[in-house]
């Protein structure tokens, strides 16, 4: 028994090495979201900007929109922030979920770097994040007018990613019309 145990570190290393090797050589397809084509999970959380006002999933309905999960501790969020501001200026509706963050810092951040969000949900405990299946910040979802999740992107939004998201949003807008 002990002899077999001694092989455990080697096996773990081989597993890790295999994964790294695959990572070097293969580009697998996208991460499927378990929530895809499901309604946005129910929640009741405070708004970041007006802490006394409670928000629910109903507040996100009405038109196709982006839902962006962000936090001040996440450097990649800062990277994508400028691009989100541009999108907001082009008239794209973006809802923010402030994920496991300190509200004070988050408000200061929006003041400092401008606020692209129509609404920001304060998810301090990460409970909504769990329901959504958030891997880490940033993540961006496309929802339709009925609040159904149509697309999920893990990572920063930039011009290339936006092309993809825009396609989905245009389809939704077309379908609604």
């Amino acid at each position, binding site marked *: 028994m002990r002899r077999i145990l001694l092989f455990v570190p080697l096996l773990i290393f081989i597993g890790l090495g295999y994964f790294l090797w695959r990572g070097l050589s293969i580009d697998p397809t996208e*991460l499927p979201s378990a929530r895809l084509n499901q309604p946005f999970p129910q929640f009741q959380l405070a708004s970041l900007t007006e802490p006394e006002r409670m928000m629910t999933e109903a507040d996100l309905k009405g038109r196709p929109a982006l839902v962006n999960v962000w936090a001040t501790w996440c*450097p990649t969020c800062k990277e994508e922030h400028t691009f989100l501001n541009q999108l907001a200026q082009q008239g794209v509706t973006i809802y923010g979920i402030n994920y496991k963050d300190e509200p004070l810092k988050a408000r200061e951040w929006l003041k400092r770097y401008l606020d692209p969000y129509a609404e920001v949900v304060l998810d301090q405990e990460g409970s909504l994040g769990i329901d959504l299946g958030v891997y880490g910040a940033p993540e961006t979802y496309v929802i339709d007018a009925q609040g159904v999740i149509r697309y999920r992107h893990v990572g920063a939004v930039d011009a290339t990613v936006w092309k993809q998201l825009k396609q989905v949003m245009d389809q939704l807008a077309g379908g609604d019309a």
Partner: protein
Amino acid sequence: MIPELGQYALILTACLAVLLGTIPMIGATVGNALWCSYARPLAIAMFGFVLFSFLCLSWSFLQSDFSVAYVASNSNTALPWYYRLSAVWGGHEGSLLLWLLILTGWTLAVALKSGNLPEDIQARVLSVMGLITIGFTLFILFTSSPFERYLPRIPEQGADLNPLLQDIGLIMHPPMLYMGYVGFSVAFAFAIAALLSGRLDTAWARWSRPWTVVAWAFLTLGIALGSWWAYYELGWGGWWFWDPVENASLMPWLIGTALVHSLAVTEKRGVFKSWTVLLAIFAFSLSLLGTFLVRSGVLTSVHAFASDPDRGFFILALLAISIGGSLLLYAIKASHVKSESSFGLLSRESFMLINNVLLTVCCATVLLGTLYPLLVDALNLGKISVGPPYFNALFVPLGSLLVLTMGVGVLLRWKQTSLQLLIGQLWLPGVLAVLAGALSLYLLPYWPGFWVSAGLLLAWWVVFTGGRDLANRMRNKSAGLSALLGQSRAYYGMVLAHGGIAVLVVGIALVSTFSEHSDLRMEPGDRKQFYDYEFVFDGIRKVDGPNFHSDTGVIRVLYQGEPYTEMYPEKRLYTARGNVMTEAAIDPGLFRDLYVALGESLGGDAWAVRVQYKPFVRWLWLGGLMMTIGGLLAATDPRYRKQARRDLAGA
């Protein structure tokens, strides 16, 4: 001509390394003393050639020989000579050459200092170091030679060294860090030699212990330097970002710390041998992994790695052979290892084991948090950050537990301690720690929350349990003062290093809670108050430096309403590359730093200014320095030399 000589010296190094990696190893296996005796001269020659190669590269930098591609992309004629020299390790190729220089330097040190080891052990240890050298030399020669030429079109001017790296902190940081990283290769070589010879005994632990502790001390210093540099140079006033590059150095440190303790148990009691060997392998493996993760740029972007697949696959093959090979050897050989003694639940051994388990879990946590985003990125699922919330949530409780058991551990005896005796030893430090902790909390401006309070309490706990231990030792001797001075150097080292942990904990707890910072839009005359300090913005001056233009802010500081000092934060434009750099102004102090950084101009006379008040921030690096000195004291304990002579006489 000079660069070609450097390249040639590297090729000769590879040949010598092959000889060193094979002949003494075979000699030790078949018992041929002549073949074994080749190890030392080969090790010395190998170092000589790498040093020569390194000097060739340094010469090319000093001469600004821009026909060498690496020099052209990392230097500039306007650069002062000392930055030209430090630019040698400013990029990927040169850092690898520095790595190799330090590796062969450690090999040389082992060759010169290990005259008292049994011949076959010495031959095996040096041989393993030779094998590692083969891998690295080939990696440099095939994929990252710093001596490649730009021919025939030689650039007129170099691209300059990144201004971030034009700094004393960054001149010192990589060599210290590498001394630590590579130093673990000695512990690794000793472990492999012990596995091969089947002699995993207390003598082996004694031989490798001072080497390991020195490497650990350098690594500690390297990490502390890096943190200090990030604090004053990056303009954020942060001192630890949980960024993958930092994590890459933290992981070997955590395992190295576990190894240092585990080696102590193996030496004193002859137990944990198999575990100690595994830790030695892990410490070096993580150093390798860390170096490559950082140097290959794989962490900032996978695509930099994949764009040069040769490098990536070479690295992976190197890792697979060295780590996989040693783990295989471990799996085959370690089953013969037997413990030489047993121990009870309440014993120093079992608490050292708890320490080891906690440190290993900490390391696994960091490894997971570091590699997970990398894997997600590698699988093309996008970029995500596993942020400080993850690390803090796991690290704070684990670290607290670690410090708690540390206090108990120093007071426990080897083998078995009765519960009664332990309680007798612990109650007084416990009560004192609670009292001192309560007093500290009372002195703070407000209740800082559970974990910070726990941190302060634990810092006192470490101080008082250490004091108790010292008191015990003094009681057994006649005169107080001579007993205080008469302890072994290793003991003082331990006390200092553990004290460093207490200082570090206080620093972390207070600076993360009571820091005040504000990003302000300031026009001349605007004021901001933090505690007793008031900052007054007096406007901007234009100042021209030797190779940059600067906007220098003038900030007057009042202490309790009285003029205290003036601070000059800068925004510099480096003309060669067009980089804009922030130079923060810092008023340092043992109990608090004042930190002012200048942001962007907001139009008119208004500027974005970041003002910070950082209490106890210096304690972070003071703690690191104490651990470093403690480690160096312990490693130079005269007992190792005396014991080595005794081993020789007994053999």
